[in-house]
């Protein structure tokens, strides 16, 4: 509450409103509205005055990395275990789904961290933990001096406005019986941030920011198209001036041509309001565009994290390499045929009983004995790059012997070496160190 006036000042429609009013799609919806309630099908829209150059200017290039941005959210060793009950007369807990198992990362202020991985890897659970839809089993989530993981629901309430979520499905995440105004304004009334008579102007302002016609506040979600509904979801998330937005597959339910509109809108919002994003998606290309930093998850763990150029250009973890090689590429049309890719055998193992040591080893072509015995630490191997692999290396140049033995005090087979002292104290910090472990020299280096 103390930050309230401040926060509201931030979102005054100075430049923002004006900007939003000029964007192409903003005009569309405004002019397409008059007679047809069927917002989806209105073709009265006219963009005759919009030429390609103007449109192109509104399209954004990939978000740039700000290496100096401080962390707004710092997640350390976060865990979420869901109990599995037996099916007998008495339901005992017979195991745990280790949905998220000890992950650490930082979300930079005003930046975005992408979270990628296949279904069941725990990326959506992570998003739900950060918005505290679940209470974590362990670990900490530091945000503005509070550990979100430890707060009770009541203590969490004032902080909820700062951490908001955008959901995947714009069809089910909006209550069909409420008007857009009610949906977007609900949080204002719950948190009693503005006096009752100011709710509507604020709602209209938000609708304008996300490129909807502010006069449509009294319409129902079913009168909007999928892309427009996702805009409503974004407006709802923005209502309380959040500091962090968790976007869980925000565009994957939308048509291709609409996806870009929404991604551009999210980029606009990020720059205007300095919001940090945790961007969860399975579409590696969208994540690459939106997030200067990316974490790759597999079976509840982060296997590789780093800046965009490293993760997409020089991935060191075999899983990241396999994942990237599997993405179909439009440019392949010029060459013809399929892209060469790394084939992964089998399915993802059960998170109830994950493989020992490295969780990826059962599907990894480089796996050796050590991988089953010792879990590879998420080791910093570059200025902004960490990978959790005993054989970390660029594609085609994975080392023949494990690179982690010295640090872990084990031999090449993963058995402990007598008298060796493991030196892995810095392995799980959320951010990056000044120094890192150089794979070639096997020494800690810096700068």
């Amino acid at each position, binding site marked *: 509450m103390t930050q309230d006036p401040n926060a509201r000042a931030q979102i005054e429609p100075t430049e923002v409103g004006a900007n939003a009013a000029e964007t*192409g*799609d903003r005009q*569309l919806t405004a002019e*397409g509205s008059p007679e047809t309630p069927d*917002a*989806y*099908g*209105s*073709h009265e*829209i*006219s*963009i*005759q005055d*919009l*030429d*390609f150059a103007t*449109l*192109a200017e*509104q*399209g*954004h*290039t*990939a978000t740039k990395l700000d290496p100096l941005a401080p962390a707004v959210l710092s997640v350390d060793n976060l865990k979420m275990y869901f109990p599995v009950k037996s099916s007998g007369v008495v339901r005992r807990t017979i195991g745990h789904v280790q949905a998220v198992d000890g992950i650490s990362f930082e979300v930079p202020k005003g930046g975005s961290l992408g979270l990628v991985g*296949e*279904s069941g890897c725990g990326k959506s659970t992570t998003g739900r933990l950060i918005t505290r839809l679940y209470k974590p089993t362990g670990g900490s989530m530091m945000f503005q001096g509070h550990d979100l993981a430890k707060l009770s629901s009541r203590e969490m309430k004032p902080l909820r406005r700062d951490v908001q979520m955008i959901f995947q499905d714009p069809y089910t995440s909006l209550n069909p019986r409420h008007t857009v105004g009610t949906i977007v304004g609900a949080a204002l009334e719950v948190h009693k941030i503005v006096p009752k008579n100011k709710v509507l102007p604020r709602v209209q302002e938000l609708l304008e920011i996300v490129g909807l016609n502010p006069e449509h506040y009294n319409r129902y979600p079913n009168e909007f198209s999928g*892309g*427009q509904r996702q805009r409503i979801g974004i407006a709802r998330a923005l209502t309380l001036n959040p500091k962090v937005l968790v976007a869980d597959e925000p565009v994957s339910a939308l*048509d*291709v*041509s*609409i*996806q*870009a*509109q929404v*991604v*551009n809108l999210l980029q606009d919002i990020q720059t205007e309001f300095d919001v940090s994003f945790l961007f969860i998606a*399975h579409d590696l*290309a*969208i994540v*690459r*565009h939106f997030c200067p930093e990316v974490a790759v998850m597999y079976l509840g763990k982060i296997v590789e994290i780093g800046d965009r150029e490293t993760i*997409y250009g020089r991935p060191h973890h075999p899983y990241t390499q*396999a*994942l990237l090689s*599997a*993405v*179909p*590429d*439009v*440019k*392949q*049309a*010029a060459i*013809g*045929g*399929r*892209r060469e890719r790394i*084939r*992964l055998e089998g*399915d993802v193992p059960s998170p109830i009983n994950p493989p020992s040591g490295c969780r990826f080893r059962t599907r990894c072509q480089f796996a050796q004995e050590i991988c089953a015995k010792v879990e590879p630490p998420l080791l910093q191997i570059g200025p902004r790059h960490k990978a959790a692999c005993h054989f970390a290396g660029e594609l085609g140049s994975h080392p023949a012997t494990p690179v982690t033995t010295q640090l872990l005090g084990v031999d090449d087979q993963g058995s402990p070496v007598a008298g060796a002292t493991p030196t892995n104290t810095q392995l799980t910090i959320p951010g990056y160190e000044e120094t890192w472990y150089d794979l070639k020299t096997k020494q800690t280096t810096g700068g």
Partner: protein
Amino acid sequence: MTSVPMTQSSAAERDAAEGPYLQVEDLKVTFPTQDGPVTAVSGLTYSVEKGKTLGIVGESGSGKSVSSMAVMGLHDAKSAQISGSIRVGGTEVVGLSESKMRGLRGNSMAMIFQDALAALHPFYKIGGQLEEAYLVHHSSASKRDARRKAIEMLDRVGIPQPDRRVDDFPHQFSGGMRQRAMIAMGLINDPSLLIADEPTTALDVTVQAQILDLLQDLQREFNSAVIIITHDLGVIAEMADDVLVMYAGRCVEYGTCKQILVAPEMPYTWGLLSSIPDVTASTDARLIPIPGNPPSLLRPPSGCSFHPRCVHSDKVPGDLCRTELPALLPASSGTAHLKRCHLADPLQIYRTEVLPEIAPELVEETR
């Protein structure tokens, strides 16, 4: 195209001599509704040869699924009016009796669907559903034959322990395995035409790659004509020989995969290309959306259906885009490449205006 090395088989040569396996001509599908007739597909013409893959691209409501369902005869005769011609292996299926159509469906042509969990019956075992598909077209086969065939097909599509998994229910399979089972069911009668409607949309990338591999392997093995319907241009680029871009029920661009994705001549195709990021593209590439929303088919726009969303119509003199539907005419890159656009030199515009924004690294190469 080089992607599918089909030509070594003599069967393929013979088929090629007979002409395309599927020929669609001037297809029109109209649904009468309370608000008036909705023309979901109009004037659609394309063909697919055996061993070749046609990719159909478009947004929801573009008519890509409706047209394929018309080929399969899956529209309810009471609610859909279909005109034009669809020839499958020489047989005209528009107006064909339901019983004759039933003999073709699942037999010489099969379809696999996007959401395998919904598309498989939740109450019947995987094996039972496969056997049923086999038995309906092999009336003399015994239940045991059908079961053997089902296990064989599950094995063929790479399901481990097929003799055990055949007795599983769909919900016991993982997403990728369900889609494999769906493909096994589609191919159980060795169809010459396979229509895959968004076959990998709900799947993870590594699973998607496996399924696409499988489809290609099977196509090679059975020498079938394949149609892949998708909105993912990456999948199209890797799988299709020919590409058909649909918008508002019409074909707006048609050509080889390379022509469509490397030298597109229709602003809608440009829009699709510019509104998706790419894992290998330059980070200076801009993401440029197509403004607005897909049109209502109930009241389609006048002239070119795409004109209300087109940012290049200012380069066309007068009111042409608004008043006159452009014909599907040969493009500059070859006679097999057709486009529906009034722009005088679209390729020039694409290369000098669009490409520098969406793929600056490619500009040098194409000059």
